[in-house]
């Protein structure tokens, strides 16, 4: 059994908060550049050019690529043979506190959905923990902006709705979202599991390296079909009209009950930020 002091986690989380918000992933940047070549609409092209330039400025000047630096969402993979000395959750929150303050990132969390009083340090974070074999701690940080999160949705379909039902539901969600989630978007889809599992899968789907297909044939097929239907919608970059509405559709699945077909859509804007560290 390996032991890790929780205080070691704080500076790592702090650094992740800053780097994720300053440096757009190479995979996203590549997809934006490919989008620029594909895009037919002049307004759409102008948007993509601005986004590529924006990513460069953010990287060079070490400033937030988007002012909405998001809800601090964490996916933790905790090795079963690792003992954490101290409070893991508190260590993560402290890292967020420090990272958002020093990194000049916007604090966007209110303490209760109805009182709307800002917590002023962007905590608490949303923290998902999964146990994995080994004695390492993997911390994935994926800040999520409000604009695209607000356009996310889920439904409990009937098993008879099948693939067509899933495709229609996802395409309809993208259509309804229109320009609001800052297209080009990445569409995270979770199918199966239970009522709470599907949205979790949809969010996890967003962590995949952009451009990689699911290794599950049914999911890969869904991804392709939804991508082609979404391209036909004509929404385009920022909703100004065009071809490049989604950079990718990414599907994750889980076994489900004989009576149900849960489907969740988590929409991610082009500011698709996630960075990870292993301790």
């Amino acid at each position: 059994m390996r032991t890790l002091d929780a205080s070691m986690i704080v500076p790592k989380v702090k650094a992740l908060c800053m780097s994720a918000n300053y440096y757009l992933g190479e995979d996203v940047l590549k997809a934006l550049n490919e989008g620029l070549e594909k895009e037919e609409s002049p307004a759409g092209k102008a948007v993509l050019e601005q986004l590529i330039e924006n990513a460069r400025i953010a990287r060079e000047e070490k400033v937030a690529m988007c002012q909405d630096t998001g809800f601090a969402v964490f996916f933790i993979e905790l090795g079963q043979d690792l003992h954490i000395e101290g409070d893991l959750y508190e260590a993560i929150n402290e890292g967020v506190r420090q990272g958002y303050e020093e990194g000049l990132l916007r604090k966007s969390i209110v303490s209760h959905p109805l009182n709307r009083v800002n917590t002023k340090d962007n905590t608490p974070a949303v923290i998902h923990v999964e146990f994995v074999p080994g004695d390492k701690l993997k911390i994935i940080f994926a800040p999520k902006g409000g604009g695209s999160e607000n356009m996310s949705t889920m439904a409990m379909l009937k098993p008879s709705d099948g693939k067509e039902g899933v495709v229609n539901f996802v395409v309809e969600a993208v259509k309804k979202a229109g320009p609001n989630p800052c297209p080009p978007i990445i569409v995270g889809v979770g199918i199966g599991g239970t009522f709470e599992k599907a949205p979790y899968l949809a969010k996890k789907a967003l962590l995949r390296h952009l451009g990689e297909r699911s290794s599950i044939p049914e999911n890969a097929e869904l991804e392709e079909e939804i991508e082609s239907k979404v391209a036909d919608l004509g929404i385009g970059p920022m909703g100004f009209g065009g071809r490049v509405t989604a950079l990718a559709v990414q599907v994750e699945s889980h076994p489900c009950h004989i009576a149900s077909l849960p489907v969740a859509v988590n929409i991610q804007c082009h500011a698709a930020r996630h960075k990870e560290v292993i301790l």
Partner: protein
Amino acid sequence: MNGAKRLTTPLKDSDLDNLKVGEKVFLSGIIYTGRDAAHKRLVELLDAGKELPFNVEGQVIYYVGPAPAKPGKPIGSAGPTTSYRMDAYAPRLIEVGLKGMIGKGSRSQEVVESMKKHKAVYFAAVGGAAALIAKSIKSKELVAYEDLGPEAIFKLEVEDFPVIVANDIKGDDLYKQGMEAYRRV
């Protein structure tokens, strides 16, 4: 942006007469920031027949909640927020002379009608292009509602702030027309 028009605030009706949806514009001059909470307060003042903290006539409001500024810089990253949240308030401000709004995403039919009736336009800025947009903001000064933090009303001095006309005074809508032009279903 190539082939962009240049406009300086405050905007006059004659500035807006020939603006068409899809047109790129570089805005310069003074613009004001405001989001949900500030809009609510402005409309409450109008309802009570009181004076607003700034004269909206000919002005432009930018829907933004910026990130904190680096030392020596006027503002942090400052891209637009989603405009539909201000739809309930916008027509009241347009009635008293507001000429422009900057945000992202489409507006309600009511706002579009109001822009047509009173001659005002809605400019879309590129959502998420926040570091790039911040470069066109030269100064920032508090106008009202300090207690709202990043949601307070600030006066910004901008130079060549890049926007695109999303709704013009004829009632045209870039979001509808753009999607229509590229739709294949």
